């Protein structure tokens, strides 16, 4: 059984159809890319999967369960975590607190325990802190744990966002243009990091990238979206030579 299967998803905003008859599936531990020109509806698909928008029609099966239309926090608890195209960190908080917040869903003590400062609270806080640091270490951010998130350089903010998403211990991680605004070297490193995260945490990853060549290197399978519809799906080589895909991308400057 695939980890997530999307059937016949529709979404329109007023008169504009952003996603039309979208069908999709991803296996356990698969790394899939979703590409398409600007405004194709990629981010909208992510918003529908994670519950930010409610679909007009269609079903999203995650581990066999229909999650379409559930509130975002429930979807997150079921094991889907994401990053944002426009970075959305908790800007005034420290790097460490950003990750700690993502660990809240498994908080090991009660509200009363926190207010009364029980021993369980202190043990729990210690556990949260250790775990948060562990995630920061993976992304090489542990030495910046006390910095305010908005003061980090751009590339590190992107990495922190992934660390934070990972801290919710998802089985599906979805990344919206994680390399946007990075230079080629940073992008290359990031892609390697993404591949290694998948190995280490046995995750499935769904990746949006605007830049086609980049996705080709790392993704096992690719979906191409144009005007809200899938115009091609398959292995990178197949996509590279697909006439429709080339046309869609010729429509804009690459």
């Amino acid at each position: 059984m695939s980890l997530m299967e999307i059937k016949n998803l529709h979404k329109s905003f007023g008169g504009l159809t952003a996603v039309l008859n979208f069908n999709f599936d991803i296996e356990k531990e698969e790394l899939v890319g979703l590409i398409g020109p600007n405004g194709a509806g990629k981010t909208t698909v992510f918003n529908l999967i994670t519950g930010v928008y409610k679909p007009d029609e269609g079903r999203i099966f995650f581990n066999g369960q229909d999650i379409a239309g559930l509130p975002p926090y429930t979807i997150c608890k079921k094991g889907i975590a994401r990053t944002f195209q426009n970075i959305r960190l908790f800007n005034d908080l420290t790097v460490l607190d950003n990750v700690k917040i993502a660990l809240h869903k498994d908080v090991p003590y009660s509200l009363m325990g926190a207010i009364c400062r029980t021993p369980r609270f202190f043990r729990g806080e210690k556990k949260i802190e250790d775990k948060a640091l562990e995630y920061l270490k993976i992304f090489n951010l542990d030495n910046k744990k006390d910095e305010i998130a908005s003061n980090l350089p751009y590339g590190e903010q992107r990495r922190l966002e992934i660390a934070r998403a990972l801290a919710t211990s998802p089985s599906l991680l979805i990344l919206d243009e994680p390399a946007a605004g990075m230079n080629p070297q940073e992008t290359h490193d990031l892609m390697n990091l993404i591949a290694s995260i998948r190995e280490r945490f046995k995750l499935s990853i769904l990746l949006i990238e605007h830049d086609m060549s980049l996705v080709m290197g790392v993704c096992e399978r690719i979906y191409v979206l144009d005007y809200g519809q899938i115009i091609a799906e398959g292995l990178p080589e197949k996509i590279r030579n697909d006439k429709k895909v080339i046309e869609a991308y010729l429509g804009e400057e690459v």
Partner: protein
Amino acid sequence: MLEFMQQIVNGLSLGAIYALIALGYTMVYGIIKLINFAHGDIMMVGAFVGFFSVTMLGVNIFVALLAAMAFCALLGVAIEKVAYKPLRQSTRIAALITAIGVSLFLEYVMVYFFTPNQRVFPAETFSLHNYHIAGLVISNKDMFVFGSAIILMIILQYIIKRTRTGKAMRAVSIDQEAAVLMGISVDKTISITFAIGSALAAAAGVLIGIYYNTINPLMGIIPGLKAFVAAVLGGIGIIPGAMVGGFVMGMLETMVSGYGSSLYRDAVAFGVLILILLIKPSGLFGKNTGEKV
């Protein structure tokens, strides 16, 4: 049925006053996204200027109305320049607190100079006369209040729809940065908005003086809040919405006083506010806009 019609007639003039005040709220909110809590107090200052024009200078009511409008237009511009402009880049809550500060300042400066006591608006400006039309009683006072308010609203519509100033106001409220690129002076446009909004409030103040016969330095608070509710009801930032909202609030208030308990008159305004906010926060005429992620 006739009584119901009579209530509507009674509500019309009060509604027109609320509409005038609501317009200022809406215009200012539309342009700088600030709930100008001092707006009701500008109305109060207008009422006082009108009052002194009539009693001390002995001018007729039309001149008093114009004097109040002119004075408050300047007052509004000054308040914006001194208190709100420095806060344009800071948080909304800081601006809100400043507006509350300005409101208190105006109220208590007036209390200091003119005592908190009620003053009776001179009756001789208006020798009351009732007309009987199709079984309804309509006073010349109601007609004057309603008529002046309508004329002012027509003038406002003209300014907003037909003049360069109006176009600039609309442009700045839609997209400030784009407006700057088009060569519109944002500062000047904001000043003009405050001037017009405050002048309308001043007119409402004089009309309220005539309507209720009395004025006092704290008279702006409750009508200010109700007019604000009217602006939210119509969809804050939307000019026709403020007019409709004002009339609805005026009618509703006279209905509640006429048929139900006048003790709950003020609660009704807030009840309406909460209902509209829960059902359609963008107001009757507003569009729902979700956040793009």
